[in-house]
């Protein structure tokens, strides 16, 4: 809680610093559907500004739990430089690892919350597994932007506090992790609501 408060304050500060030239921040509401119109859960959408955004002053943190031999959440999205902790809520040990190029790491057999969160300082896709439980998989997209969100069960997401401007809207789906599901330019002036459809499978 403390952390999030800090983050919120940082965001506010950041917003104040960058938002000077802008009158007010916009909110993007997006529905992600498949070609058939069904809302897709756990799809990630992020907005890349034309000029790379600076790193956040305070290192953001995130958390991926292991509950009932599942990674929770299944899909995560964080800004580059985020530290993620992997608290073990089960009464058995897990061995979390990643061979992904964006971040290779392993936390050998542990219980409870490991002492050090893992820093993800390279943008890219990181897939994590448990060396003991083959079926445990967690997908993590590390992005170089603070404007990102993932869809809820209805395929809905909201990206708030986005300064108006021209962005690249990029959609990514964990079932097709090796490419972007959608890249489109987006000129955000005010709050807007948009719907996009993506391909969900690598074979699509």
């Amino acid at each position, binding site marked *: 809680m403390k952390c999030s408060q800090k983050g919120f304050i940082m965001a506010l500060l950041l917003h104040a610093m960058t938002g000077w030239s802008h009158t007010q921040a916009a909110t993007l509401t997006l529905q992600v559907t498949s070609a058939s119109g069904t809302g897709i859960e756990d799809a990630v959408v992020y907005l890349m500004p034309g000029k790379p955004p600076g790193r956040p002053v305070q290192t953001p943190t995130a958390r991926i739990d292991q509950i009932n031999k599942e990674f929770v959440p299944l899909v995560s999205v964080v800004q580059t430089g985020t530290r993620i902790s992997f608290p073990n809520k089960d009464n058995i040990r897990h061995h979390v*690892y990643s*061979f992904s190029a964006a971040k*290779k790491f392993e936390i050998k057999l542990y219980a409870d919350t490991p002492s050090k969160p893992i820093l993800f300082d390279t943008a890219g896709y990181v*897939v*994590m*597994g*448990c*060396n003991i439980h*083959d079926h*445990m*998989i967690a997908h993590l997209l590390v992005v170089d932007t603070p404007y990102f969100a993932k869809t809820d069960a209805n395929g809905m997401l909201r990206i708030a506090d986005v300064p108006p401007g021209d962005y690249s809207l990029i959609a990514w789906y964990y079932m097709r*992790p090796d490419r972007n599901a959608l890249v489109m330019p987006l000129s955000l002036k005010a709050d807007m609501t948009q719907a996009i459809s993506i391909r969900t499978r690598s074979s699509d």
Partner: protein
Amino acid sequence: MKPARFKTLQSRIFVFFFLLILATQLGSILITSTLGFSIVNKTLGEELETGKRVFIRLFDQNTAFLTQGARILASDYGFREAVSSNDAETIASALDNHGGRIKADLMLFVGLDGRVVSGSTTARQAIDASQLAWLSPREPQRNATALIERINGRLYQLITVPVTAPLPIGAIVAGFRIDAGLAKDIGKITNTDVSYVSKETDTGWAVHASTLSGAPLEALSQALDTDRITTDAITDVSTGSGVYLSLRTRLPSPGGQESVAVLQKSLDRSLAPFRDLRDKLLMLGALGLLVSGLSSLAIARSVTRPIKALAEFAQKIAQGDYSGKPVITGQNEIADLANAFDHMSTEIASREAHILDLAYRDTLTGLPNRAMFHDRLQQAIHTARRLGKPLTIMLIGLDRFKYVNDSLGHHIGDLLLKEVARRLQDALRRGADTVARLGGDEFAVLLPTDDMGSAHKVARSLLDALEKSMTLDDQIVDVRGSIGIASAPLHGEDITTLLRCADVAMHQAKRNSSGYAEYDARFDHNTLARLSLMSELREAVEHDHLTLFYQPKVDLKDSEAHSAEALVRWIHPERGFIPPNDFIPFAEQTGYIRAITTWVLNEGVRQCAEWARMGLEVNISINISARDLMNADLPDYFTGLLKQHGCDAQRICLEITESAILDDPGHALENLQRLDAIGCRLSIDDYGTGYSSLAYLKRLPVSELKIDRSFVQNMASDPNDVVIVRSTIDLAHNLGLHVVAEGVENEAILSQLCLLGCDQAQGYLFSRPVSAADFHAWVQAKTWKEQLRLARQA
């Protein structure tokens, strides 16, 4: 021609048993072989099917095992870490290292794009990049796959398992070489020969690993190339070293390739025990055949040897040798037969001895008979000829034996002959001399070493021995003998000649009452000239060389009547006149008398008829022999003659001797009655020489009696004969018979006959037999009238 050796009992027995046993042996061997083959074939097929099931199970298990290993390897953290390094060398070393753990022959890591990322050292050695082209289209599957594939000419089982990190990042392909070692292991478990073969679409089959080698392997390749081995069916594959039953099973293969495991079992190897059994049976069979052959030979021998011995024994018996005894031991049927043979031989010997005795001995007197005498004489002639010494034989005839026999009976006759035999035997003391009875009252003596001089002495002693009176059944009988002597080589050198000479001499002795006589050729009428008599006589009858002479029968009471006896004469064209005694007895003996009689009857009847036509009435008497009297055709023939010549039957008188009638009275009587019925007269000729009684003659249809000349001739000197003649005439007259006297040679006899009341007389006093012409002349001369007148006056 059939081979003779199969005709004998021995060879038949042998061949039969030999063939029987041969057939049995062959049959059992054949059945064993056939049955063995079919059992083996079936069993082998079943084993092959079982082998196939085992193989498939084994293959699946092995695949599962290898897959499991590959999976464990693929999930190894370190391995995944190494693979994640994306460094080919690192990956290669990891493949080397981890492949070693599961003993894979080659290891590959294939990326998600299907491209080979890296390979183990062995894999890189085995495969060059170009040969991995086939791997390119491969998409790593979530599940493991296992395929049998040909790489660089070698066969591998390739197990593909995905590698996750934790999402799939590729696959490892673990290759296990299918080599002879594997084939050997699998072969051991399935208990078959195992071969792994493969082909690509455009190539032929190649054998990659096999438990086979050499010829069977080559045969398998050929069979595969000619598609002889199908998937499901069991197939025979002939190889240089026997037949293999084959069954194949398909192995999972990638497209464009086909791999197969062929399971095979050697028929020959499985048949080996049966072949062994068959060989042993053959050996046993051959041995059995040998033993049974030898024993059947032995049995056949044991059966035929005694039979041969018996056959030889029988041959000996046939040759008249009864001395042997068949040597058969044992108690069997053959021995019984041998005993029967032996018994038979003894019986035959004794019977033969008896028969010989009967054949060679006269049963009445116990003396050797004619046959034995012939044998001994033959032998003696042979010996004498060889030694150049003379020998002598005698024939002894008993005088008046017939009289004794007829008057005193056959019993006394037999006793007489026995006594004579005894005396003759006693008189001959020397062992070499033989006395034999030839038949009737005829005896013969063989003096094998005597010349004529000593023979005379023996003859005298024999006559002396017979001289003494004999008392036979209380009757005193006197007997005398006449002996004829012939000597070899003086009179002849063969039996026939000697016996004939002795016979001639004996008759000479009889005629002369001289006791004994030596052969003298002068008295021998049976000379060689007589041998041709028969043919000459036949010629005489056919060419009318015979003629009839007529001797008048003068009627002593009615001097006007004319009668004559027709007597046959033979005027031989070369030898002239032949007396009737020289051929009539001969003709009677041979039976030719019938032809002569036929001729005489014809001529007599013809002459009678001729004279009758001339006005000369003559009653003609014709002689009929005993044989003629037996001829049933005679009456008919006679009737025919009478008719032919137109002669009155009353004019013909047929003269029959007493003895002719007595030979066969029944037959004679019938013929006489038929002749009598014709109308001719019948006369008894030579009456008094036989022994017939007048009472018997009375029953015959005769009308005339001719008193034998022997009684008539002696009438003048012997008063007894006068008595006989007188009583005969009286008796004949009493029976109503006409009486004729023969042999009237002088006037004294004629006057006596006149006194005795005889009816007719015939003799030289009146006329000899003369020709027909002379008889005619004699009748006309009438000289007999004067003779009669004088006789009556005397």
